[in-house]
């Protein structure tokens, strides 16, 4: 019944690789022998391994066209090298700063507003003792996760329509002027992040709810004896207890920092909000696939990918330094 018991929660989450050490000491012949013994397992693995090589690693190899001038007849191999020309062209293009700004802003809003909500939601739900109410809330809030992006954007368009949407009807009911949400640059990011919150908060909370169940009830018991209120216990026992999971989710989120949600953004775009809604990924789609500037678009994609990767590594190192959870 003491606070030290919180430690095991953290240890469970930390992956360990004892088998790495075991392997390095063996001599090569024994390893081959062992591999031969488990040839069936390699057969099980082979199709999926091929899948990953073809559909994940070949495209990575294909990224070299970002440094070439892709000519369809010559293929990826035969096209001439041009170095960093495409990158330079992108950095100097008048669109560059707008794209970067939009991408960073949307994702910053996402991190500030959409990231903490599932955590708070899970902490609140964890305090609910009525099982049926809890089940009801869970069932309802998980449901939007299963709605497709197309349907979600369709719903946004219907509900936010200035002439017939229920949101504007509501605003008018209170004497306000109808707002053309989708036709304004200033509203776009709020609508995007707001709908994201509506769709994902419940589902994203699952992982925190799971983590909360592994917190030692003795801690709560001891805290109650010491006269801690519910709110204090949430703040000082539950929240620190799931901190490792929060850290991991944070790192993962950062790792997709610039990429998130371009398929939804693409659907939400129109001529009126394009100044605020064009992000790096949607621009890659337009310049690459619609306008066939493959090399240029691949360079932009690589630039974006590199930012993501660097941010991920940085966050991971940071987490390690803080003696918190890290991915690797």
């Amino acid at each position, binding site marked *: 019944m003491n606070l030290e018991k919180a430690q095991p929660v953290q240890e469970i989450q930390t992956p360990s690789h004892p088998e790495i050490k075991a392997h390095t000491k063996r001599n090569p012949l024994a390893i081959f022998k062992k591999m031969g013994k488990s040839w069936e397992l390699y057969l099980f693995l082979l199709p999926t391994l091929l899948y990953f090589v073809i559909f994940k690693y070949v495209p990575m190899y294909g990224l070299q066209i970002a440094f070439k001038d892709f000519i369809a007849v010559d293929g990826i191999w035969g096209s001439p090298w041009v170095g960093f020309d495409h990158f330079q062209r992108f950095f100097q293009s008048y669109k560059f700063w707008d794209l970067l700004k939009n991408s960073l802003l949307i994702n910053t809003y996402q991190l500030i507003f959409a990231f903490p909500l599932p955590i708070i939601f899970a902490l609140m739900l964890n305090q609910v*003792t009525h099982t049926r109410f809890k089940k009801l809330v869970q069932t309802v809030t998980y449901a939007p996760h299963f709605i497709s992006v197309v349907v979600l954007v369709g719903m946004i368009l219907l509900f936010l329509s200035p002439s017939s949407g229920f949101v504007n009807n509501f605003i008018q009911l209170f004497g306000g002027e109808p707002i053309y949400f989708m036709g304004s640059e200033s509203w776009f990011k709020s609508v995007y992040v707001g709908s994201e919150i509506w769709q994902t908060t419940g589902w994203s909370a699952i992982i925190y709810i799971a983590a909360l169940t592994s917190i030692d009830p003795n801690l709560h018991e001891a805290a109650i004896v010491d006269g801690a209120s519910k709110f204090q216990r949430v703040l000082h026992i539950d929240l620190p207890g799931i901190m490792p999971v929060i850290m991991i989710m944070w790192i993962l989120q950062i790792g997709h920092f610039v990429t998130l949600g371009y398929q939804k953004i693409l*659907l939400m775009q129109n001529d009126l909000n394009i100044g605020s809604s064009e992000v790096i990924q949607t621009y890659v789609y337009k310049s690459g696939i619609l306008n066939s500037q493959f090399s240029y678009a691949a360079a932009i994609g690589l630039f974006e990918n590199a930012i993501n990767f660097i941010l991920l590594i940085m966050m991971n190192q940071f987490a390690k330094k803080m003696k918190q959870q890290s991915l690797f």
Partner: protein
Amino acid sequence: MTNLARVARTKNDKLFDFFNYGILTIILLIVLYPLYLIIISSISDPLAVTAGKVVFWPKGFTLKGYEILLENKDVWRGYRNSLLYVVLSVAIGVSLTISAGYALSRKELVGRNFFMFAIVFTMFFSGGLIPSYLLIQQLHMMNTIWAVVIPSAVSAYNLIVTRTFFQTSIPDELLEAAKIDGCSTTRFFFSIVLPLSMPIIAVMALFTAVGEWNSYFPALIYLQDQALYPLQLILRSILVASRDAAQVTDGAIDPDVIAEQQQYKELIKYSLIIVSSIPVLILYPFLQRYFVKGVMIGSIKG
């Protein structure tokens, strides 16, 4: 927990509970209302919907929206295509994920950490849109159903979840016992592991199925032939591009049909949202615990 809570219920805690339940109820309503509104709008008089009179219950009951959709060939074909793509991607995805997940869970697989790293790495760094697009071109998969089925069938995340499941639920002793009885790895997998892994198969099938049913982007970039369009692309043209249902495909169109559809344009959208979500809506209440289980297994190792 309930016992403890009863013992130490101070005034503060009551206040906390009041706000906690209050806020959760508000959240519940915020999530529920848009879904409810779609349902009641889809069976209401379109004029009442546009005028904002449909708020709590349907007004001027009509099934016209559904009737028009029933006659729409594009929607039906999209539906059929989507079902086919779902079945194919589940078959491919699940068999690849389960077999590889199993192999990666076994300690005698030399180099499994290397394989695992190679797979996890793809979650954080990828070739991106353009090289993948060119790959599909080179493989001559452009404008075929395989372009929308295969590249998205297996995911690194699912593979990690599956491996974790096998690691935690198939004890080593079971394998040892089977080996002593002269059971081969393959036979062990098919006659002992598979029957024990129905939960994970269900989870993977569901994840893959929902993902495939809901995706539109691969179809948008890889398919040109409208006869191959999945439902989500049909939805996109009606819901998002706001094209009339009849104009999705070219060809001779009855002017009467157009006039009718103009009138029911909004109604069709509401009905279409319901129709396209039906498979998931029906499955969801029964399968919710499987989905949740999938996320939970995944959380064991980050």
